[in-house]
């Protein structure tokens, strides 16, 4: 059992590190928004996993609050990103295109 929990923890850690890499490197605001969303999802899953491992249920309200408020940041940043000017959007698109050519 402990081995299985360790495997899950290692996988979650690797996933969080990959997401953090995209969060730092991500060429555009949208990439960083998606990466932070996935990082928050990973955090919620880790909170649930910790409850299973340690055998308590005290942080279920934390899961509820995190899941319920994750949408606020996404909508706020998405609205902000929709209003940025066409010049910066074109520059970001060019940068993104060049990144994977």
């Amino acid at each position, binding site marked *: 059992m402990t081995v299985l929990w360790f495997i899950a923890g290692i996988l*979650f850690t690797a996933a969080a590190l990959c*997401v953090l890499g995209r969060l730092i490197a991500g060429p*555009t605001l949208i990439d960083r928004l998606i990466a932070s969303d996935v990082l928050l999802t990973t955090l919620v899953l880790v909170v649930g996993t910790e409850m*299973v491992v340690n055998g308590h249920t005290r942080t279920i309200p934390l899961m509820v609050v995190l899941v319920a408020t994750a949408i606020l940041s996404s909508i706020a940043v998405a609205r902000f990103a929709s209003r940025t000017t066409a010049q910066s*959007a074109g520059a970001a698109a060019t940068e993104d295109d060049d990144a994977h050519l």
Partner: protein
Amino acid sequence: MPISDVILDVVAAVLLIVAALLTLAAAVGLLRFPDPLSRLHAATKPQILGLILVVLALALSERSWTVLFMLVPVIVLQLLTAPISAHMVGRAGYRNGNVDVDNLVVDELAPDVDAAGRSSLSGGAWKDEPGQSAPGDSRRGRPRSSGSPAAGP
């Protein structure tokens, strides 16, 4: 400890590993995929299925009705809010011109954005004539597929 408890605990641990694998797949997809829409596609895997698996593992390891009723709002809230936020993020990425149009097989939003831009020409802050393309569209084949951020809700 009865044998059924051991089985349930092992099943819960396996569910946790599957959820962790989904999260890792999303993270690798986030690193490897070329443009924001495909990264968004990768990111939605742990948001619904991974969360359901972890909540199921928690319910299986605790085995009480109270915990189960406390866990239902987690799933319901995530099912309600995840599509909305994904829609908003994808729309913002499209309107920003961050989507690589050459990778798309079908662009079903382009005619709608085109129509919205045409109908809001009188009131919108962004006016582009049919003959000239927006500054962000110089690299694209279609003239007005994106780059009009003020063209409607």
